[in-house]
Every structure is written in C-alpha cells, then in structure tokens.
C-alpha cells in the first residue's frame, strides 16, 4: 500500500462520512505529485474508493488544485482592488521581468510559476504575494529581486 493510501484512510476515519476526505486527499496527492497528474488522480481515487473522474470533477472546481504541471515554486501576486490600489500590478510586472516570463507561465527550468490571484485576505498589508502558500506582506517592486533570489537559492 502506498503512503498516500494509508494517509487517506486516516483522513477518511477523521470524518463521520468518508466523502468529506475528498479535498484533504486531493490536497495531499497534489503535494506529493506536484500537481494532480492522471497518476495522482488515480492514486487518490483508489485510496478514497471512488473513480479518477469523480476526483477530477471536484478538483477542477478549485483554484489551488492544478491539473497541469506547475513549477516547483508558486508565486501568486494578489491583484484585487486593495492590493492594486497600492501598486500590485507593478509588483506583478517586476516578477515578470525578474523571472523573464509572463504571468500565468512557468520558468523554462520548471522552477517557478507566476500568476495573479484574487484577494488573499490580507488587504491591509498590501501588496500580498503568496510564495509557496506563505504570505509576504507589504511587497514593493523593489523587494521582488530578493524574493526571486531566495527562491533560486532554494531558501
């Protein structure tokens, strides 16, 4: 039995109804495989006792679950109103320059994916940039090269 299988059984047991383990299981499979590849969906479905199609139908609804490969690191710049008001677009553009890609793309070496994202619930500490799901607050364009450097150095 795979490690994922065992962990998903534990997840299923932590709810009164095993169906509730779907999102946590998908998140787990995503983490282990880097994205929800056909193999990841199959493994997840087997562990849950359902079909890959059901898993994919659910996963495709959610913004954090990717059905196509993404970079090893994920950089998400909030461009909703509060962040935009204090210069989020300039931050996003600086990332595009530093990484030499357009928003929505992954660097050719597969290291970093860059994308704009909707309000991250940190509007008072704008601009919010989520780097591998950890928030950087008050990000200014001049902070971008340091963040990219940290990622490149594997910090």
């Amino acid at each position, binding site marked *: 039995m795979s490690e994922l299988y065992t962990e998903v059984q534990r997840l299923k047991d*932590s*709810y*009164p*109804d095993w*169906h*509730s*383990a*779907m*999102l*946590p299981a*998908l*998140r787990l499979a995503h983490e282990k495989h880097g994205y929800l590849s056909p193999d990841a969906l199959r493994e997840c479905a087997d562990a849950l006792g359902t079909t890959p199609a059901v898993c994919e*139908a*659910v*996963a495709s*609804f*959610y*913004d*954090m*679950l990717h059905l196509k490969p993404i970079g090893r690191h994920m950089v998400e710049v909030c*461009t*909703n*109103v*509060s962040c*935009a*008001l*204090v*210069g*989020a*677009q300039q931050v*996003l553009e600086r990332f595009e320059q530093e990484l030499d890609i357009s*928003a*929505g793309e992954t660097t050719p070496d597969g290291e970093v994916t860059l*994308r*704009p*994202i*909707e*309000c*991250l*619930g*940190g*509007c*008072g*500490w*704008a601009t919010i940039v*989520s780097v591998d*799901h*950890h*928030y950087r607050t008050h990000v200014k364009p001049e902070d971008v090269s340091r963040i990219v450097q940290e990622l490149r150095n594997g910090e």
Partner: protein
Amino acid sequence: MANEVVFADAYERDLTKLAEYEATGGYAALAKARTMGPQAVIDEVSASELRGRGGAFFPTGRKWAFIPKPDQNPNPHYLVVNADESEPGSFKDNEIMARVPHRFIEGCLITAHAVEAKWVFVYIRGEYTRPYEVLVAALEELKGREDILDGVTIVLHRGAGAYICGEETALLESLEGKRGQPRTKPPFPAVEGLYRSPTVVNNVETMATIPPIIDIGGAEYAKLGVPDSRGTRVVSISGHVKRPGNYEIENGTSVRSLIYDLGGGITEDRELKAVIPGGSSTVILRYDEIDVGYDFNSLLALKTAMGSAGVVVLDDRCCMVQLGIRISEFYEHESCGKCTPCREGTRWMTQILRRLEAGDAEQHELDLLLDVCDRINGKCLCPLGETAAIAVASYVDKFRGEFQQHVDEGGCPFGESSPLHNVLAPVAMHTHSPVAVVPA
C-alpha cells in the same frame, strides 16, 4: 478602541498560548456555559442581540434556536464554522484566528454546547497557512484537556481556493467532498445541513464574540453599539489610508472616523473619492456620504451594508470604470457557473465595462450595462452574482458623469494615472472559448 471584546488583551499578551489565555480568564465562559444548559446559553446570546459577522447579519441566537431538538430530529447536530474569508477587502477572520485562536475555539465549544453538537468543522480557506498553523498548535495544546473539550471533536478542514465556498450551502457541499456549488434554500442548514443533518453555520468573528457575551452577560454586551447593531465589530480598513489594518470598533462609529481617525486619513493627504463600506459586495459610498454611522440601520438608509466589514478607501486618482472592471472580473472568475444569469451576466458586465474603458462603447451600452445588472438581480440561487450587479450598478449610479465621460470622450479620462489601470486579473488567465458575446 477602548472596548475591545474580540481582541481583549490580545495586544498586551500572546493569547495564542493556552496558559496566557487561561491567565486572562480564558475558558471560564465555557465552564460557565456548561453549568447553564443549552437553552439558557441560547437565551443569553439572544439577549445580547448579536448578529452574525459573516455578512448576512442574521441574529445568532435565533439561528441556534432553529436547530430541532433531538426528539424532533434524531440525526446528530453539527457546528460548521465559516473561516473561508475571501471577500475582497476583508481580512479580519485571518487576524482573529491568528491572534485569539483560543477565544475562537472557546466560542466554538460554547456554541457546540448550545446546539448540542459533538462535531465542529472549521472550514478554513485553503490559502490561510498561518491561521491554520496557529489553530493546529492551539488544538495541540488542548489535547488531553477533557475539562475543556468534553468529548467534542474539532476538525480543521482546509478549502482549496474558491470564494463561493464562503456561501454557507456551497461550503457544506464542499465539506461533503463535492464542487462548491450552492444548494437551493429551503431547506436551510439548520434543518438539513451537513450530511442532511441539522447544522449551524457561523462566522469566525461570531464565534470569537460568544465567550465575552457569556462572560459579561447578554444584556451587558447589548449596551455597546447602537440599536439593531449591538456590540463591537472588527473592521478591516485598506486601500488609500495611512494606517490600514483591523480595528475593533463599537458599532455606530462614523465612517469618517474609520477613515480619518483609525485609518489616519488618505495616503499622501490626497482627496477621498469613494469608500466601499463592507467588502466588494456592497454599494459604494461617495466622498460626501461618509458622515454616517457604521451600523446596520444607518448604512441601510444609504442602501448599503456592513457586509463582511471590509472598508476599502479610494482616493481621487481612481477611475470608477476601472474599479468596475476589476470587481466584475472577480465575480466572473468566482461564479460557480450553476446559474446562467450570474455565469453569463458577470462576463457581459466585464465586456461592456472594458468597451467603456477602451472608448469603444456607444451611449446605449451604459443602459445595457445597467440592464444586464438588473437581469442578474434576484434571479440566482445565491447572492454572488447579485452582489456583483448591485455593486457595479452603484458605481454607475454614483459616478454617472464619469461613466458618461468615457462615452463622450471616447476613452478613459484617468488612464494610467489611476492605480487601477490595466490590472491583470486571474480571469484573464483562463482561456475559455466565447460561449456568448454580449451583443453591442
């Protein structure tokens, strides 16, 4: 801010630590509630006149009283806490969970006692890593403390990125492992919620307000605030203010005071143009409408609301058409796709607004925009599309001259000088084939 309730002691001490929280009298309200019996707790919360802090402002005590008694419905009861906070402009639940996790958990346990639930599910938005970690640590500290937990299981359930999962029935669908699409109401969750069982859905701040209410008593809590809006509210202030952040205010504080006293005034001492009072879903207030109390009735008189208490301040450089585009794009992206007026309407709104901004729109398209908004209103299962329509229509209503100028001058009078110029929204990343293009 002398009357902190939710954030009481949180600035002086590290209340993420159980010992610190207990040293300030933490979990005493829970012990008190358990001596009171469920109905007495509900009565106390009803006496406080507390209304939900998630957006709909529903009386909390009344919501709990809807839960059928075990002899009326044999199914187990559930408490589901809405920690999906995703409304643009709101970031209060984030800080509440991160700063006063135990007050929040205590509120959950008191509520579980009141509605006779043995399970508490906290549906926390997937992006909230830090609040999640703080809650994990807090629950870890509570392991073995049966005097506190008393057989109640608290499950932290992480979302995966979807604003609509903040809508309570979509949240329940998502918690049941499905796509987060809203259900038809009725039946309401109190009757048929999670796993078709009686379920109370409450917001994070609502939960964190319960311990102080039990502690000081409902009547005492109701002395704070103004009629129909009792107590305090954690307000998220952002945008063009000098001191953005969360501030716990007494309900009824003026909007002017939020902007100029708490927020410290407009950045670079520019002129105020407009303020979104309660998150992106609410009707905008013009610069000359801010001498109004931040409470239900006062804002209702201006056809707007406290919503999720996200106060977004915009200075005089901002273009209202650009604001409309960005807000409309948000709802277009977050529409779950179940109801046609919301799915197509938000997309049409964006298209017309883009034509206006580019100077391609003709006169009749201004009315077409309002017509599209009107055709979303009241025609969907949930309020998502409706609030988009109401918000955008309010920009047109209150800044009609500016929208007209876009038509007359064949373009945007603000252009690049507006900070909302050409902001890349996530919806632009999605390549969807044009199902329907709005007729020009």
